[in-house]
């Protein structure tokens, strides 16, 4: 039985500060009644619809505060949507939360291990909550501790674990009851590169068993390497959807040249637009311009010549190859890292 995930028009408005992992969202001011009482509200999700196929590794890519964690929260029964619906397989998450919880395993963004228990006990008690028999629990816990290279620490309290060890144990715990759908909220945050590769391998392997995986990340490389399909999320909306390859191909030209000049000149930007291979030119802040083009370095001499002729100083050039970063920038005008 393979299980998919669906959401329809999810909206979430926080009336107070959102939970830690949900980031900032965007502020609006609501007017209540006749008296104008400004009440700060935070729109975390603004009509998000997703359709994750059974057996797929699906990624939500976006900056902090885009609504990724809130989406995971709603799908995992921890955040009640203001409106809209969410399903795990056939089960409406907010009508049948217990049935939905039975199908999912969740790795949260912040560590939430049981500090009063040892690593081994964390896994076996988790198994017991899901009704595994005692021999099954012991067996699976041992296998997972081995797989996540935590065997030596099995009988220690997790209080003294490093961040990376806690993260590995959280993932092992989420897999303990062999859920059909695995949610991972920023799974590789704080992991060293080696452990990150181990994690990717484990996620791929888990997915090969027919399991659905939904992960959130603001790391392009991870999204590109791991996800079969991606939704790019910003301000609580999905702004692009497709395979990493499709998404990258959807950026005009693919290459992005970020330029900065001594002064602003519309005339110069128009001349750039006429160069062969240049698809789109956008003026940016601080006398800058973004050029989307189907070639990169070979454009530089022409750009420099045009600038020199127009007596505009070219201060800075940055070329990036086709990437999800460029895609995000193209859709939002902001870089993932700076937002």
């Amino acid at each position: 039985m393979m299980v998919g995930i669906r959401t329809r028009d999810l909206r979430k408005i926080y009336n107070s500060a959102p939970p830690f992992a949900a980031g900032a969202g965007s502020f609006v001011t609501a007017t209540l009644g006749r008296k104008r009482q400004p009440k700060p509200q935070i729109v975390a999700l603004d009509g998000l619809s997703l359709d994750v196929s059974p057996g797929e590794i699906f990624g939500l890519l976006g900056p902090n505060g885009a609504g990724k964690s809130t989406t995971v929260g709603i799908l995992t029964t921890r955040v009640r949507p203001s409106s809209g619906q969410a399903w795990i397989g056939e089960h409406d998450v907010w009508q049948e939360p217990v049935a939905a919880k039975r199908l999912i395993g969740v790795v949260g963004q912040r560590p939430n291990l049981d500090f009063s228990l040892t690593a081994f006990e964390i896994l076996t008690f988790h198994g017991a909550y899901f009704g595994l028999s005692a021999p099954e629990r012991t067996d699976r816990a041992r296998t997972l501790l081995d797989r996540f290279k935590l065997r030596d620490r099995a009988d220690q309290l997790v209080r003294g674990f490093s961040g990376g060890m806690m993260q590995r144990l959280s993932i092992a715990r989420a897999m303990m009851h062999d859920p059909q759908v695995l949610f991972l909220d920023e799974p590789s945050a704080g992991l060293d590169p080696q452990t990150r590769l181990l994690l990717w391998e484990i996620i791929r392997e888990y997915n090969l068993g027919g399991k659905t995986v939904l992960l959130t990340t603001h790391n392009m490389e991870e999204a590109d390497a791991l996800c079969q399909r991606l939704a790019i999320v910003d301000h609580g909306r999905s702004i692009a959807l497709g395979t990493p390859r499709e998404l990258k191909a959807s950026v005009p030209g693919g290459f992005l040249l970020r330029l900065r000049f001594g002064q602003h000149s519309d005339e110069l930007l128009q001349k750039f637009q006429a160069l062969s291979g240049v698809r789109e030119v956008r003026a940016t802040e601080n006398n800058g311009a973004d050029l989307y083009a189907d070639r990169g370095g070979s454009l530089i001499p022409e750009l420099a010549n045009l600038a020199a002729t127009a007596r505009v100083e070219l201060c800075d050039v940055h070329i990036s190859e086709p990437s999800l970063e460029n895609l995000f920038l193209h859709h939002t005008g902001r870089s993932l890292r700076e937002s």
Partner: protein
Amino acid sequence: MNRKAFIAMLARDAHVARRNFVPLMLQTFLQPLMFVFVFGRVMVGSGYLPPEYKSLLLPGIMALSMVSAGIWSVAMPLIAEFQFTHEIEDRLLAPMDISWLAVEKVVAGMLQALAAGLTVIPAGWLLLRPGVELSLQTPFSFVLVAVLVALFSASGGLALGCSVGQAQVGLMFSMVVAPMIFFGCTYYPWSALTNFPILQKAVLLNPMVYASEGLRGTLVPQFPHLSLLAIVAGLASFNILFLVVGLRQFHRKAID
């Protein structure tokens, strides 16, 4: 309800209590037993208090220990787990309606409160003997009152633990728990307040009064105490109130 998950969570709490047995014992018993020793032994032995005070004091100390044990064991972990360690999330994600998790916390708290209360009797008796005259004339009433007191302590712990922020824990003890104990007829019977008529009426809003008077009425009925009917009605009403408030607050904390 998912029986397996519920029992697994009780087992988890029992396991953690076993692991923390020594600090838990010190936390629960040190203060009440010192009180028993100073007031029941030193003060009585040196003639400042009459010998009967020993018997009067013991049920009050039992109520105090039960209520502290219940509130501590439910409220403190909830405050930490919801706000700081987030440990509770794994249990919130278990395939069971989350209200049952709150109920499990209450059941675990009740068991700890009962264990604390039943330990105080022999411990206090050993410290105070001779001269403690306990007379368990109506065992059924005693069991009923003890269970209601345990439920009061655990449901009170649920309501407090889900309403108080981490920053206000100190305030919770000095503003809620301490006045509740001192004005809770733990160290004196309710009838001793006859000369303070306003206070005597006002303390009836304190659930602790029914706990102390209830245990006094069923363990040392030779002293004046509130009627059993008033005690059971008082405890039952507060228990329902705390459970309703506690469950509502628990849902608010558990779901954003």
